[in-house]
């Protein structure tokens, strides 16, 4: 049996990330702390190499590569999402460097754990089997728990990590229970076989439904959707901002991929059953998250609650169960993760030694102190709020169009109302930055690293460029899911 029987060549990007991780783990022991830049550079190189390998054999829509008997799928969606994951991980590395170094947290293990989480997310986006879904999820989650506790001497960090860990373990348990139900019903762990069994009626529909409920609970937890959101604000606030940047953006991409693989790949015959559940979760998220976000004084907490608004949109996009619905949900996920990475990135960049730019008050009069950063932040906030020429606007329109296409008009109206509510707290930040007097206390100037400045500018300007790019992006997504 040679290696090609497994289709190893399809896994080259994963293998590169895994080898990079192992090399960094060992090499970092011999690199003195003053030369940690080497680790940083090698981690970025690993990402670039993996991206190169993914793009070189980019699977066009309709082309599906299978490895390990269908456990690993490589298609246009997985390749597209992985490319986004590499870019976002690179952004986490670039933004986080200065922040972590100032707090004595700049260690080689940061890169190892982030790359391990990335590997887990890559496994999730390519999962064709319940085992692969579960293990990818655990790999991502375990690395995230450790990252949240990275500032181990800060009580707030440890508290956040414990909460995240306990609730995450519970969610994993729920998910595993649901998977065991699906296995019991269909006799297979392979998602395509489960779908087949559900279609031809050989699987007990009651068991399938029971399993679906638990799977959706797990998906909602990873998204941070309403009844499973309680970990979100504390984890966002408690972890160091550079880690919040990671936890608050990338896992949503993986959660979207997981939801698609499970719901469409495995359980699409049960669409009529899971659609109302997703809609209920989405509506709860839209209303609850928005209202609580209005009352926050901490920017990280506010972004945590507003995450629920965007997750609500992604979930209603998924719930339509149509090609257009999945495509719009993917575009929205990409928009949201990029915008969230930019917003948390701004928090990271504006923080300095002994100063965390995480209170909303800290942004008062930012336009005077750092006009360029204020401008970028304004773009991000306006885009998240969904203002016309920006990415967020198009993403929201696509979702609404998909929902209306699936004849769920009242859901679309509901989402629209809460999108308007959401605009309020985003605009409050813009108002504080541009129209209010700076606070009396002296606030240190943002870090002046040109690489960081460049990355942040690109990240925020994507929101504007989307004016030209959303068409091709939508076309790609539509082709992917058709």
């Amino acid at each position: 049996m040679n290696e090609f029987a497994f289709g190893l060549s399809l896994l080259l990007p994963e293998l590169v990330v895994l080898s990079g991780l192992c090399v960094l783990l060992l090499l970092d022991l011999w690199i003195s702390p003053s030369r940690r830049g080497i680790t940083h550079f090698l981690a970025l190189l690993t990402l670039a190499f993996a991206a190169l390998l993914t793009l070189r054999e980019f699977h066009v829509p309709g082309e599906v590569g299978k490895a390990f008997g269908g456990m690993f799928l490589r298609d246009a969606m997985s390749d597209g999402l992985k490319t986004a994951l590499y870019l976002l991980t690179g952004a986490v590395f670039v933004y986080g460097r200065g922040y972590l170094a100032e707090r004595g947290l700049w260690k080689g293990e940061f890169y190892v754990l982030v790359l391990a989480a990335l590997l887990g997310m890559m496994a999730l986006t390519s999962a064709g089997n319940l085992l692969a879904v579960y293990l990818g999820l655990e790999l991502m989650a375990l690395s995230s728990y450790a990252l949240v506790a990275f500032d181990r001497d800060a009580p707030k960090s440890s508290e956040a990590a414990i909460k995240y860990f306990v609730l995450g373990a519970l969610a994993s348990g729920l998910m595993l229970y649901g998977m065991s139900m699906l296995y019991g019903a269909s006799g297979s762990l392979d998602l395509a076989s489960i779908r087949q069994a559900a279609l031809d009626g050989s699987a007990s529909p009651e068991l399938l439904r029971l399993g679906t409920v638990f799977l959706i609970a797990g998906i909602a937890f990873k998204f941070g959707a309403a009844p499973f959101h309680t970990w979100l604000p504390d984890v966002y606030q408690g972890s160091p901002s550079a880690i919040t940047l990671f936890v608050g953006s990338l896992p949503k991409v993986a959660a979207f991929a997981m939801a698609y693989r499970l719901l469409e790949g495995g359980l699409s015959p049960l669409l009529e059953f899971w659609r109302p559940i997703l809609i209920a979760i989405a509506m709860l998220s839209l209303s609850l998250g928005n209202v609580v976000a209005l009352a926050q004084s901490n920017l990280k907490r506010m972004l945590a609650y507003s995450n629920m608004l965007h997750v609500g949109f992604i979930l209603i996009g998924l719930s339509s169960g149509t090609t257009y619905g999945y495509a719009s949900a993917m575009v929205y996920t990409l928009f949201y993760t990029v915008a969230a990475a930019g917003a948390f990135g701004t928090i990271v960049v504006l923080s300095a030694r002994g100063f965390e730019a995480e209170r909303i008050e800290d942004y008062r009069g930012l336009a005077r102190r750092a006009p360029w950063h204020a401008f970028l932040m304004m773009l991000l906030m306006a885009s998240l709020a969904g203002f016309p020429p920006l990415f967020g606007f198009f993403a929201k329109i696509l979702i609404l169009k998909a929902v209306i296409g699936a004849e769920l008009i009242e859901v679309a109206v509901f989402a629209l109302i809460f999108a308007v509510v959401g605009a309020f707290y985003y605009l409050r930040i813009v108002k504080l930055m541009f129209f209010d007097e700076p606070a009396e206390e002296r606030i240190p100037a943002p870090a002046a690293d040109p690489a960081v400045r460049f990355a942040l500018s690109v990240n925020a300007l994507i929101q504007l460029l989307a004016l030209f790019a959303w068409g091709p992006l939508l076309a790609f997504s539509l082709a992917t899911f058709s």
Partner: protein
Amino acid sequence: MNYELVLFYALGGLMLAAAVGVISVRNPVHAVLLLVLAFFTAACLWLLAGAEFLAVALVLVYVGAVMVLFLFVVMMLDVRIEPLRAGFIRYLPLGLFVAALMALEMLAVVTVKGVGDRVAEADPALATGVSNTEWVGRALFTDYLYPFELAGVILTVAIVAAIVLTLRRREGVRKQDPARQVMVRRTDRIRLVKMPAETAREEKG
């Protein structure tokens, strides 16, 4: 009702009882011991299903190693458990009600149709004519190589995370470094200082 089926239900009932015991007894040591019982009964169930390798591995790894470690940890921790349990009785009726409801739902769902015939499905190991151990080994390193490797990465992450969160390099602690002790040279240990011979006259001055 043949013998295996009676045994299956007896063991299953015992395992469930033990699992309930784990979360309801007051004494943490008893809880760990009941967990051992639950694992052991699960191993017996696997044995009944013909998966002897997995059964032995469960006993060796979980009962033999993991649970003993648990016992050590529980015995070393001096946790005041009573305050934690104070609300238990108060919430018990509600908890029981919800649990009974969930159990009823599951029963209703599971007994509707066609679970029993899945259990009796042909054993894949028997079908290929090799022993169970050999079949598990082959499956693990061929069909399930990908999840197996992923699990390996998870274990690596676990150890990296454990070390990064607990390893501390304390300053000012005196410790031995055998490598440096072996490498030592004469000049590191003793410094010969040349001094002029003392005379009586200098002492006076």
